[in-house]
């Protein structure tokens, strides 16, 4: 694949001269690339999906907000201890609708990844999320959550300040908010740190995103006694969007551009924007009590249907 792309780059460079043969060759190489990508991405293994979901150039929270949200106004802090850069949130407008949007931010560069702690939140992140959900409810605004985290941060301070409690309360709040809550798994849906924001009325998932109770590496090191067996664990965990849909855990798969969201971020971002807008439109007419009752019923049903 890399070889073909290098060839294409070279040809494009040459085609600056308008040579008709070169233009034709560009077309041929491009369609070979597309064909190969289509074949590859149609049958990605679970482990390959994990790699795609973690791709550093995949669009992150900030990219979605930057493209989709007008009048973006970030809101910070949990009002208890601090502000967590691993979960960002704020007010804005999506396709004309005022929303509260929040999500994990992994960061795009090494420096930003460190700043955002690789999307691994401390209790303050979940408590900020909870505060913003409550605020949304107060002003009757729908909530959007974008999930992209390896998991909650495992650290001394995080534990001391009640990581488990913060996650539990955040789930509690998701399930109780009386305005529409639409979640989207955009990359990695890592365990408790993910569900803390994802117990919504509608859960969307990008085509190559993954969602799991434990990382394949963690699962392999416990059940196979070796992190090297992560590929096997990834298969066994059934963590793909396609499996999630069969299990009734998610409601909709949002297609990614050919070759994954990182190849054409703009297309991926707009596709999610359309899907979020659609989901919000379908929920807009429901009143608070109905929303909460339906949301609970949705989760109560989970686990009553397997893959068999």
């Amino acid at each position, binding site marked *: 694949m890399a070889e073909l792309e290098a060839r294409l780059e070279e040809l494009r460079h040459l085609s600056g001269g308008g040579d008709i043969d070169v233009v034709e060759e560009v077309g041929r190489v491009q369609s070979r690339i597309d064909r190969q990508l289509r074949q590859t991405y149609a049958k990605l293994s679970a482990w390959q999906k994990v790699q795609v979901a973690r791709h550093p150039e995949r669009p992150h929270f900030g990219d979605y907000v930057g493209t989709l949200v007008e009048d973006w106004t970030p809101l910070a802090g949990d009002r208890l201890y601090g502000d967590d850069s691993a979960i960002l949130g704020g007010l804005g407008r999506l396709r004309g609708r005022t929303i509260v949007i929040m999500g994990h931010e992994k960061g795009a560069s090494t420096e930003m990844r460190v700043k955002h702690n690789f999307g691994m939140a401390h209790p303050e992140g979940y408590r900020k999320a909870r505060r913003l959900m409550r605020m949304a409810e107060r002003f009757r605004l729908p909530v959007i959550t974008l999930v992209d985290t390896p998991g909650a941060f*495992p650290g001394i301070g995080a534990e001391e300040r009640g990581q488990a409690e913060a996650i539990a309360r955040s789930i509690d709040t998701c399930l109780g908010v009386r305005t529409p809550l639409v979640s989207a798994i955009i990359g990695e849906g890592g365990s408790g740190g993910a569900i803390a924001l994802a117990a919504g009325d509608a859960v969307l998932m990008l085509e190559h995103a993954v969602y799991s109770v434990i990382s394949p590496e963690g699962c392999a090191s416990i059940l196979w006694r070796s992190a090297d067996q992560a590929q096997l664990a990834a298969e066994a965990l059934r963590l793909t969007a396609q499996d999630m849909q069969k299990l009734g855990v998610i409601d909709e798969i949002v297609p990614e551009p050919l070759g994954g969201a990182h190849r054409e971020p703009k297309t991926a971002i707009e596709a999610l924007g359309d899907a979020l807008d659609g989901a919000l439109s379908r929920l807009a007419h429901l009143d608070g009590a109905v929303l909460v009752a339906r949301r609970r019923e949705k989760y109560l049903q989970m686990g009553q249907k397997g893959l068999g």
Partner: protein
Amino acid sequence: MNWLSNLVRPKLRALVRKTDVPDNLWTNCPSCGQMLYHRDLEANLHVCSKCGHHLRLRAHKRIEMLFDEGRFETVATPEALVDPLRFRDRKRYGERLRDAQAATGMADAIVLAEGTIGGHIAVIAALDFEFMGGSMGVAVGNAFLAGARLAVRRRAPFIAISSSGGARMQEGILALMQLPRTVIAVQEVREAGLPYITVLADPTTGGVSASFAMLGDIAIAEPGAVIGFAGARVIEETIRQTLPDGFQRSEYLHEHGMLDLVVPRSELKPTLARLLRLLGESSGASSEGAARLAADP
């Protein structure tokens, strides 16, 4: 359709179980190494007579220990889909389940029971670490919900005793979905205006701590229990620092404001009885009060 509609009304059956371990067997205290005879351990509620270490207890033992005169009724737990992902690691999950069932005599890692504590009716859901590390999958979630709903029907407080490593990996994402499901159970108890009391025993970690175990109106822990979200080894590997003394132990959490009480096993029953008495006077007395509580937990 309600998830409960596909099962029969929980059957109640009396449980009279006496220990079948001969008196002359002994165990070494996992903390100080002291040789402890079963007869003495039983008498001392499985607490080391030398160092006070609280040994892990089977769920039915805990329940027996808490209800008045050791009398209670176990509540049949709802059926659950077996091995929903057809999970296989080095061994089939189905096989692991059967082994655990044979070894423990339990259907899954949770026991539900109702009885009285100090004369107050209560429903207890207790996790058993012996059954696959007390891990939470669909069966545990279903049972926890059934327990909460029984408490609501009885207008009784709901007590959750946790001893679990977290979500059951072999049920994948469906195990993770038991976090919201058990949180819903807690919400139902809360909205009924009834007390929800958690007793955190060793260990209470992962998905169990990040859901129902940390949402108690009153949170009690046994001394020395490991309680936290992430495992100590994972934390050490991530931050490459030595963990502070007593890290993730009950006393440490109490100091950090995460627990109401750390109560020795011998004091647990009188403590619960007192709490039920104190909370029983007002709980459920007015549905208006309950609604207010529900709105702002």
